[in-house]
């Protein structure tokens, strides 16, 4: 069974909807949770919305969905505010917190309640429960659900109207490794159908292999936006030899740009390891180490979000540039 079975309007014939966030700001009292944030999410791609806990991801998504009023700025989906969408569930699917269920109502009934307000039938509800893998459990009361079941039920709710745009807030939270793997596959599957997916996470490695683009924020401000490939930067190779300068010259003569790091090690632009090895052999220089130098995204993420001006305001009592006078119960997510 696939999601495409239900009356999916031919996506190809239609312009995808772009998510535009412009100058978005949210103050809670004197605390600026989201600070003049602007970014856009390209249609048909998976975009990771990343930032440490308390960075303002949930607040941003809630503003995008019209649940929280922005202090300044706009957030639109396909040029429209969420509240103005004529058929919201059929246009945008959202899964926010993993706990939004009445404990005394079954998961299936939770979906049926939502389905009723969008004129969606029970058949679609059962189809989705099947798809996210909780058809049996969904007939029990939600109070007893594990985090993983809640996340799956939340995903099912987001997909009810078969929307083209999906907004998922920390969908991997509380999933076991198996669940995370399932989620990855699931998101890729949805993306292959042409859906636009914005998925937030406080852990880059959770989404690194899934997303096409990233938007990184810290303390409510944009830190970096780009494709995951751009974030990786140009491929590089690391070589260790006896005379780094001599090898650098030899590589340069062969058309490779290289830079000596110290007497023995050098960094080469490009990832053609065979060619580097061949050129070293011609120059009669020994190779003690030769490897493609993967950018450590996790380290980069950490560096970006933990640089002095972006250091997490939620962790220290009153960070320098944020008089976090009334930051309420840090770390305790609502």
């Amino acid at each position: 069974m696939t999601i495409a079975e239900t009356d999916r309007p031919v996506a190809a014939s239609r312009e995808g909807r772009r998510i535009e966030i412009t100058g978005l700001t949210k103050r809670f009292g004197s605390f600026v949770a989201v600070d003049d944030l602007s970014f856009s999410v390209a249609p048909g791609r998976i975009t990771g919305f990343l930032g440490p806990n308390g960075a303002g991801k949930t607040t941003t998504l809630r503003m995008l969905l019209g649940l929280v009023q922005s202090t300044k700025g706009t957030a639109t989906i396909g040029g429209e505010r969420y509240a103005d969408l004529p058929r919201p569930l059929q246009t945008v699917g959202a899964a926010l917190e993993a706990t939004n269920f009445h404990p005394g109502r079954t998961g299936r009934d939770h979906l049926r309640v939502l389905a009723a307000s969008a004129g969606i039938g029970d058949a679609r509800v059962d189809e989705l429960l099947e798809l996210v893998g909780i058809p049996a459990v969904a007939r029990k009361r939600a109070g007893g659900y594990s985090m993983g079941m809640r996340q799956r039920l939340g995903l099912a709710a987001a997909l009810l109207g078969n929307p083209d745009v999906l907004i998922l807030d920390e969908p991997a939270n509380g999933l076991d490794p198996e669940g995370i793997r399932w989620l990855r596959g699931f998101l890729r599957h949805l993306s292959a159908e042409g859906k636009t997916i914005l998925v937030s996470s406080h852990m880059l490695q959770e989404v690194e292999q899934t997303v096409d683009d990233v938007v990184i924020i810290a303390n409510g401000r944009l830190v970096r936006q780009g494709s995951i490939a751009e974030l990786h930067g140009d491929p590089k190779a690391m070589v260790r030899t006896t005379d780094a300068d001599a090898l650098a010259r030899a590589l340069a003569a062969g058309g490779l740009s290289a830079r000596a790091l110290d007497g023995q090690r050098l960094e080469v632009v490009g990832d053609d390891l065979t060619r580097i090895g061949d050129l070293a052999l011609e120059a009669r220089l020994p190779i003690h180490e030769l490897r493609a130098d993967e950018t450590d995204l996790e380290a980069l993420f950490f560096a970006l979000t933990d640089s002095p001006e972006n250091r997490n305001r939620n962790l220290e009592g009153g960070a320098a540039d944020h008089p976090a006078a009334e930051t309420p119960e840090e770390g305790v997510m609502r």
Partner: protein
Amino acid sequence: MVATISSEFRKFFTTRLWWGMAIGTFVAAAAFAGLFGALASRTGLGDPAQGGIPPMSDHQIAVNVYSSGVSVGYLLTLAIGVLTIGSEYRHKTMTSTFLATPRRVTVMWAKVISLLGIGGLYGVVFIIGSVAVGATVLSVRGMPAFAGAGSIVRTLVLILLVLGLWALIGLGAGILIPNQVAALLIAIGVAWIVEPIAGALLSTQSWGAGVAQFLPSRATTAVLQSYNGGGEAEQLSWWAGALVLAAYAALMAGIGSALTVRRDIS
């Protein structure tokens, strides 16, 4: 709008609350009707001026027996009204509700309309309980159970209206006090204890009786034209009583809705 209303009904009937409350309503209606039916007498009891029961016609007896449990019944629909919105805040289902219907005013109207229906439904349960038991007890005692049937039917229909309006008052209280437990305690506490005491105190003042008739419980008795416990205390006509109740409901739900439309949902 129709879809949002049907979603609200589905919300209500997919938790255990509804049948718990239905049982409560049925039992309260039946118990009070049984008790009043057993005690009712044409000659009255004690001195009406001292809080006794004045002599009543067969028709008055029947009306009073069938509506005797209303003051408990409306506490229950009041609670339902509070819970309708309170549980959405408490369990954070407000998020999915507003995602499904981002026009919050539509959601509020859907809640109002569905609650009137739900209140009416509980009214039906109430009537089944009170009439079945009350009429049986009266008949067993050899008293006519349906003297003035047309006007009894009118009273029964008005019970539906009263229970629906009290549910709306609860909705207003539930929106105004976003903490469900606090809202429940305050609403029930005020309606059950504070307001009757205030009514009794007001009635002791010469100027107070005119004010007291506008209190919700007095307005409720006025709608049902049942025995008001206060001898010859001033009482509104039935439609004025209904308007007063509707005004309370509109005021509370109106202010509450206006707040909800602006409130951040997190």
